[in-house]
C-alpha cells in the first residue's frame, strides 16, 4: 500500500485535526500535524505549546482535536510531556492505565516555543531521556502574536520587531541552528524536514516514533501571513528553500548524519527569498550586500553539513 494510503487508513475518517478551525486560509501547519499523526501507528497524545495552532483550534467550548490534546503554556510543552510520559510509565508499572498498549507522546510547538522560550524545558527533557517526539513547526517567527522575530527568523527578514527601514535591514542575526542544538544533545533521532516534502517528512516521523528515546523534528512550515505570500505559492517557496540548501533535509540517527534529499541542481537562495514579502526590502537599495551575505552563509552551512554527511 502506498504511504499516503497508509496515512488515510490510519486516519480512518477521523482527522486528528478536523476542519472548521480558525487557522488562516492556506496555513501550512495542519498538513504537518496530519502527516505526523497519521503516520504514527499507535494512539497519540498531543501536547501543544501556545501559538497559532493552539489558539486557533481550541476556542472553548469547541475543539478541532480528535486525539487527546493538552496545552498548559507557551514555554513548557516539553516539561508537560515529560510529566505525561512519566505518568504513563508509572501507571503502566502498577496497572493503572485506562487501556493497555503503547502510546506515542507528541509535542507540537512553533519555533518560538522551541528555539526560544521553550528551549530550556526541551533541553531538560532531552537530557532526561523521555520517550517522546518533539516536533517544531518552524514558520520562522512568532506568528500568533503578529509576526515578531524569533531565534528561528532568518537573517535579514522583516518582522514587526526586526522591521526593515532606513536604519535597519531586518533581523541582524543569523538564525539559531536548532537542529544542531538538538543533535548536540546526543539523542537517538534528530531530523530536519519541510512541509513541501511530505513523504520525506512521513518517513522521518516513522523513524522518529520508533527511536529508543527522545526524537526531535524541525519542520519548515510556511505561513502566508508572516512570510507574505499567497497560499498557492507555498509549495514552490518551500521547494526553493530546500533546493537552495537554505533548508537541507537530513537526519541524524545516533549521531550519524544523512542527507535524505539532495537537490538535483542547487538553486540560488534568491529563489527562496524573492517570493516572500518579508524579504522584499532586500531587493532594493542596500539589500544586494545582504543577499550576497545570505548566499555565502547558506553555501558555508551547506558545505559543512555535506562534509558531516559524507564522513
Amino acid at each position: 500500500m502506498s504511504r499516503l494510503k497508509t496515512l488515510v487508513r490510519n486516519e480512518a475518517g477521523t482527522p486528528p485535526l478536523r476542519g472548521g478551525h480558525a487557522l488562516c486560509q492556506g496555513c501550512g501547519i495542519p498538513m504537518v500535524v496530519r502527516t505526523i499523526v497519521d503516520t504514527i501507528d499507535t494512539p497519540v497524545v498531543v501536547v501543544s505549546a501556545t501559538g497559532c495552532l493552539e489558539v486557533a483550534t481550541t476556542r472553548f467550548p469547541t475543539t478541532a482535536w480528535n486525539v487527546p490534546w493538552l496545552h498548559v503554556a507557551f514555554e513548557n510543552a516539553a516539561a508537560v510531556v515529560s510529566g505525561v510520559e512519566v505518568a504513563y510509565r508509572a501507571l503502566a508499572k502498577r496497572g493503572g492505565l485506562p487501556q493497555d498498549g503503547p502510546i506515542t507522546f507528541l509535542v507540537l510547538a512553533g519555533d518560538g516555543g522551541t528555539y526560544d522560550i521553550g528551549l530550556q524545558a526541551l533541553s531538560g527533557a532531552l537530557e532526561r531521556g523521555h520517550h517522546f517526539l518533539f516536533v517544531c513547526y518552524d514558520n520562522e517567527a512568532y506568528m500568533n502574536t503578529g509576526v515578531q522575530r524569533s531565534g528561528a527568523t532568518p537573517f535579514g527578514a522583516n518582522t514587526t520587531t526586526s522591521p526593515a527601514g532606513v536604519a535597519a535591514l531586518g533581523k541582524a542575526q543569523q538564525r539559531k541552528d536548532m537542529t544542531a542544538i538538538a543533535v548536540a544533545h546526543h539523542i537517538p533521532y534528530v531530523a530536519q524536514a519541510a512541509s513541501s516534502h511530505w513523504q520525506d517528512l512521513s518517513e522521518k516521523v516513522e523513524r522518529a516514533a520508533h527511536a529508543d528515546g527522545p526524537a526531535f523534528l524541525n519542520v519548515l512550515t510556511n505561513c502566508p501571513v508572516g512570510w507574505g505570500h499567497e497560499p498557492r505559492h507555498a509549495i514552490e517557496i518551500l521547494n526553493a528553500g530546500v533546493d537552495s540548501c537554505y533548508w537541507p533535509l537530513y537526519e541524524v540517527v545516533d549521531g550519524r548524519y544523512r542527507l535524505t534529499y539532495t537537490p538535483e541542481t542547487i538553486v540560488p537562495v534568491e529563489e527562496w527569498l524573492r517570493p516572500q514579502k518579508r524579504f522584499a526590502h532586500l531587493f532594493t537599495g542596500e539589500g544586494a550586500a545582504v543577499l550576497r551575505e545570505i548566499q555565502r552563509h547558506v553555501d558555508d552551512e551547506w558545505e559543512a553539513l555535506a562534509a558531516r554527511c559524507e564522513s
Partner: protein
Amino acid sequence: MKEIRWHARAGQGAKTASQLYATARLHEGQSVQAFPEYGPERRGAPLRAYTRIDDKPIRRHDAIMHPDVVVVLEPSLLHEVDVTEGLAPDGIVLLNADTAPASLAGLDVRCVPAARIAGDSKFVNLVLVGALAAVLHDPVDAVADAAIELLGGKVAHDEIRTAVEKGYACLS
C-alpha cells in the same frame, strides 16, 4: 452619540475604516473612539470594528451593543453572522451590495455597490466610509482629508479622494 459597527473579513480594512471615520470627525471637533474586536480567528475570518462619535468627550470604554449604523463591507457575511444584532431601533444598515437581500427586509438598508465602484482599487472600505458620511450628513471633504492623512503615505491622494467621493455620491 453615534455608534457604528463595521463588519468585514480580517484584512478588508474595517479597522482602518473605523479609525478613518473617527479621524474625520475628530477634525470636525467631535470626540471619537474606534476599536476592533479580537479573537483567535485568523485571516479570512469575520471581524467587527466599532466607531463611537460624540459631541461631549467620550469617556466610556464599554463595548458597543446597540449601534446606530452597521456597515457591512463584505456581503457574503450576511450568510454567516447576524449583522443586525442589537441594531438600535431606527438603526441603519449600510451594505456593500446592489440591492438589499430579503433577509434584511423591514430594516432601513442603504446599498452601495462599493466593490464595483472601487473596482480594482480595493478601496471598498473608502467607498463605504464616503457613503457613511452621506448617511450621517457629514462633509465629505473631512472624510477624504482624513483618509489621505491616514493612507496618503502609501497611496495616491486623488485615488483616495475619488473613492471616498464616489461612495458619498451614492447616498447623498
